[in-house]
Structure formats: C-alpha cells, structure tokens
C-alpha cells in the first residue's frame, strides 16, 4: 500500500477501531444488566438515522455541537485548552434573546442581526481569557472555567429577571417570529446552513490564510514561530476570538433555530453541557472543523437515538448515558493519544 494512502487512512482506521472498541464496551455493560445489546444498538442507529424524522432530529441535536467543537479545536490548533465554550455559548444565547426577542426588525435582517449579535457577545466573553493569557500567562483552563460559571449565573439572572417572559417564570422571552430561522422539519431549522458555512470558513481561515497559518505555526512549534516572526499574541487572540464567535453561534442556534421553545429556559436546561460536549466532539473529529461536523452528526445521533434504546428495549436512561459516554471516550482516545505524543515531543 502506498505511503500516501496509509498516511491518510491511518486516522480513519484509528477512529474505526475506536468505534468498535466503544460499541463492544457498551455491549458488555448492557449484557451485565441483562439487556440485548444487538437489539439495543439496532434501535439506537435505526432510531437516530433510520427515518427522515430521525435524521432531521439528530441533525438538530448536532447543530450546536458542530460549532462548540470548533471552539475547542481552534484552541488546540494554537496549543490552547479553551474550554470556555460553555460560558461563551450562554452569552451567545442571551444575545440572541435580546435582539431576537425584544427588538423589532424587518423579517429579512432580524435573524441575521440577532445571530451576529449573539456571536459577538460570545467573542467578547472569550476576550478576558485571551487577554489574561497574553498579558499575564494565566492558564486558560483556569480562566475559562471561572468565566463559565460567571456566565452561567449572569445569564440565569437575566433570564429570571429582566429577560423573563411575562407570566411564564420558567423561561426567557421567546424569539419573535421575524427572528426565527425557517423550520426544515422536526426541530431542525435553516440555521444549520449558517453553522456549516461557519465551519467551512474556519477551515479556510486555518489552512488558506496567513493569520491561520500563523495560528497553526504558533500551536505546532512556538520556538520556530517566534524565530519566523509570528506573533503568538495575535495567534492567541485570533484563536479565542474565533472560538468565541463559534460558541456564540451555538448559543444563538438554540434560541433562533430550535422549536418549540425558541428561547432559554430558566434552568438553562436546553443549553447545559453543549459546550463541554463540544470538547468530546472535537476530539472525535480530530480537532478539524470539518471533521467536527461529522463527529457532531454522530454525537447528535447518540443523543437522539438513546431514547429509542430506552423506549423499545427498556434500557434505563442512565445506562444509555453511560453507554454514550463509553463510546465517546473510546472515540476520543486516538486524538488524546496524539495530543500527549505531541506534548512529549515538544
């Protein structure tokens, strides 16, 4: 087999082996509790991808994950551990509520304006972590986690007070009909096209532009980058900015692009963990914006298909979560190993 082919196929084989390991481990867990794993997996995949409704719903679950994965991936490309997608996403969502729910704009530009505002708030929220890193070398894991919590309580406060829907204490003001993206089917809306375009744009930025090259260079080899005159500050800023825009878009997608609620719940329940799940999705997608799209679709399928396992085979919902978790860990392994190997070499 030619060297070129082997090199390209290698990550695919790794992921394929990882899928097999994950599914076998999940099957063992199911057998231990007396469930039929074949039956369960058939329903998982048939439910998630076996019908038009299933596919649309899986894509709806996948949409925000595609971009929260970008947040983490673009961080890793600059040798950063940006785990602030969660908080940046909350800000994106509240931004979408503000423009989409409280302002009156013409039908054509309303969704666009609300989306852009949400993305900008997300990027703004990423800025403090970037500045702290550049100016004081504060490790971004610490700063982004703390900012996540600040965002959580701040957004919860806004949803329960100034932006709460009058008479409906459990959620914020829904996006006005003019601000909503057209529904494609089930709970999927046209915002998926915006998300896909964004992922492609990030890929182009990273591999086809000068500043993108600079970002990857700083991430791969900081010494060589410095010698070549690349600015690590600029790379860090760009990475956080793009990550913040991505997470902001994810948040906006749940407000402007997710029926039937079109808003944020007071528990933030429809936003919780989308940022952290993005990390797993990014790892499965090998930290590539386009790889992340496929990984997100797979992950969305797991999130959607789990209920069929529960319904038709009787697998307890907590066990479904455990099985999903095992599959994700197994799939994330190849990339984790690669990151560790790169750290050791540098």
């Amino acid at each position: 087999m030619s060297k070129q082919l082997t090199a390209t196929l290698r990550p695919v084989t790794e992921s394929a082996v990882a899928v097999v390991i994950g599914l076998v481990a999940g099957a063992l867990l199911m057998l231990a509790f007396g469930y039929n794993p074949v039956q369960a997996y058939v329903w998982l995949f048939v439910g998630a991808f076996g019908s038009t409704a299933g596919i649309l719903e899986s894509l709806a679950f996948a949409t925000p994950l595609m971009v929260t994965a970008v947040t983490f991936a673009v961080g890793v490309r600059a040798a950063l551990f940006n785990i602030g997608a969660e908080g940046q996403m909350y800000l994106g969502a509240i931004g979408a509520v503000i423009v989409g729910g409280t302002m009156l704009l013409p039908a054509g530009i309303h969704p666009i304006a609300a989306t852009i505002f949400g993305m900008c708030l997300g990027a703004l929220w990423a800025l403090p972590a970037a500045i702290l890193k550049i100016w004081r070398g504060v490790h971004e894991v610490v700063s982004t986690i703390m900012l996540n919590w600040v965002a959580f309580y701040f957004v919860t406060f806004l949803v329960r007070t100034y932006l709460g829907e009058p008479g409906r204490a459990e959620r914020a003001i829904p996006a006005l009909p003019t601000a909503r993206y057209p529904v494609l089917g089930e709970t999927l809306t046209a915002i998926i096209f915006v998300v896909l375009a964004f992922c492609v744009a990030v890929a182009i930025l990273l591999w086809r532009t000068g500043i993108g090259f600079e970002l990857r260079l700083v991430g791969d080899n900081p010494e060589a980058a410095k010698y070549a005159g690349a600015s690590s500050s600029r790379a860090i800023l760009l990475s956080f900015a793009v990550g913040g825009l991505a997470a902001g878009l994810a948040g906006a997608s749940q407000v402007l692009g997710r029926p039937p609620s079109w808003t944020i719940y007071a528990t933030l329940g429809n936003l919780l963990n989308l940022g952290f799940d993005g990390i797993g999705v990014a790892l499965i997608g090998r930290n590539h914006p386009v790889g992340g799209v496929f990984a997100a679709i797979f992950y969305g399928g797991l999130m959607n298909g789990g209920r069929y396992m529960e319904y038709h085979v009787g697998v307890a919902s907590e066990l479904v979560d455990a099985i999903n978790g095992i599959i994700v860990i197994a799939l994330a392994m190849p990339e984790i190993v690669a990151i560790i190997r790169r750290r050791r070499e540098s």
Partner: protein
Amino acid sequence: MQAILIVVIVIVAAAGAAAWYLANPPAPALKKIAVVSDIGGRGDLSFNDMGYKGGAEAEKAFGVTMVELVSKTEADYVPNLETAAKDPDVILVVGIGFLLSDALNRTAWKYPDKNFAGIDTFLGGAPNLLNIVFEEHKGSAIVGALAALAAAQYGYSHIGVVLGIEIPTLWKFEIGYKWGADWALKWYQNKFGKSAPVIGDTPVKDRVLWTYTGTFSDITKGYEAAKAMYAQDAVAVYNVAGPLGLGLNQAVQEIATSKNLAMGPPFWIGVDANQDWINPGFVLASMMKRVDKGVYFATQLVIEGKFRQVVADTSGFATLGIGTSVAGIAMTGISVSTLADLDEFIQMGVEAEQLTGKKVLPMAPEDIKAKVTAMRNAVPSWIWDAEKDLETAISNDPSLVPLATTKDVVDQWRATLG
C-alpha cells in the same frame, strides 16, 4: 493492515446480526401507555414517581404495558412525545409536568388519532388532549393550617415553605399554604379566645418564610433553604419542590441528631406522594397530589372508550381536588395524608425493595407505622380537629381557598400574607 481487516470483519458481523434481528422481529406487544416524565426524572419519591405508580396500577387493572421515557433536558420533550405517538401500539401518551405543556399540545395536534393526557399542563383546545389539573391550593391550605397550629402548640414563631421553579402551578401551593396558616390562627383565636402564642405575635406578613429555589432537581438547594428557615425558628417547612424534600429531610435530621430527638418538632411536610415514611415522626403530614390517580383515570377513560367525550365535555381540563368528580365519576385528587394512606405507600416501598434488592424503607414497616402513630398521638387532638373543620369548610365552599394563577392575584395576596 491487520487493523483494517479486523474492522471489516466486525462491521460485516454487526451487519449480519442486525439483518438477522430485523428479519425476526419480536412478538408485538400488548396495548401500551407511554409516560413521558419531566427533567428530574424518577426517584424523586413524589411527582414523577407518582406518575409511574399510576401507570403501574393501570397496567395491573387494565392489562396494558407501560413504557417510560425520561426527559433529560427540555430539548427531549418533543422527541420523547413523538417517539411515543408514532408507536402504533400506544393507546395513551401521558406528559407529566407543567413544562411539557407546549410540547404536549404541539404533538397532540400533530397526531389527531392518538390520545394525549397531561398532568399540570395548561394548553387546552385539542380534541384529543386532556389536561389533568389539581386543586393544590386546597391541600396546601390544610397543611398550612396544620403547620401554623403546630407552631402555636410548640411555641415557634414561624413556619416555612421551600418551592422549586416559580411557575404558575406553584403559586397555587404558595398562596394556599399562606392562606391556610392565616385561617388556622383566626380559628385558634375563635376557639381559645386568645391570639396564638409566639406565632400570633409575629406580624402576619412575616409568619411564613418562603423561597423559590429555582430548581426541581438540586437537592442541596433544598437543604440550604430549609436549614436557614429552621435556624429562624420555623416549626415546619413545606416541600413544594419534588425531590428537594430529601434536602429538607437532611436539615431536619441534622437537628434531630444534634438534639437527640425521637420525633419532631422540627417537622417537614411532604408533597405529591405520601412522604410520611421517609423519616417517621419528623414528617408532620404530606399534601398528597394524586398524580397516580390522574394517570390511572386517563387510562381508564381510554379503555372504556369515553376519552374524547370527556375531553369535549370538560373543554379539555379535568380538575381533581377535594370532593371533586369528573364525567360523573367521583375523583378525589388532593388529600392530606392519614395513617390509612401510610399502609399503601409502605407497601410500595416493600415492593421496591423486593424488586431491586436495595433498602428503600428506613426501618421495618411495623416500626414506621409505630413511630408515625406515636407522633400523631403526641400532636394534640384539637389540631387534627381543626384540619377536619377546614376540610369540611372547603368541601362546602369550593371557592373558599384563593386560587392564584396570575401574577396580579399572587401579588395581591403577597401584599397581605407575606
């Protein structure tokens, strides 16, 4: 190279297994009822578990099979309801919880041939959707009266209530409880010719300590809220937040252990299910909201072919309360726990233990009964008499207890009662 081979073999094997499975489908199930729960899920020992109990009883009585779907996040409501609605064997889809109203209504309109029922849901209009609501304000008034009189008896200055997310359903509990406490202290004044000791001296607006924790699943918040109330001299705290009752219990148990108490005061008051058995002697009573009867009743109507007619006759809303009846069938949905109810719920605990092999009951059934009986005997009989008086008054005058479902009514009552 070997890795690719392994992967290919496994994929072929899996495809073969799947094909074999699809070619030999399992035998079709009996008629099914689908119960879709809210976030927080099972194991709350109140709301969601009561829904499950109703389904289990319907299974035994009508020979149907119950299937459950737990909603982990709000995004699961619509997919869960749709999964249930698409199954041709399902004769009734039940959505448990106010938060499912939108999703339930939508799904009901989308599947006009299926029957849908909601517990606490509020969007009527669909001819195939029956919203089952309860008169929680009346039950809450009764336990509010109990708590206030316990405060008078044991010399405490406050009573408390810990609530979940501030949804209109919970306003009914809050205002009913405060109103009941006020009614009781006026009753005391009438009966004994003097104002109730200690709590009678507390200004009316300060008597009831209350807070909305904003969650139906974070038990720690329940613990912290209750602990603060007990520290402020509350004799009893009413749980209006499902599983958070376990947090209230923790707070009470802390005090009981530190002061070496065998029974309350301090007490907590259970909700939805009979929670008296969770910590016998420390649960003054439980405000039982018979969600199980609601699910059972909805199933009964479908089996008897009366479902659509009842929806039409009641405009889509069946109200279960004290002394209520729907479609000519007497249907009580709200009651305050008595010793007789305790047996039923202890039996549930025994069955759960047999099923899972894990300990559910805190002590042997006879001991639970003994402790609860001892507590009820220790509480003077005039308090239980007052409870009966209020129940009778409520049965005679259905609009006696204020029903607060809109913000202005709630604000009105908060202005006088705190």
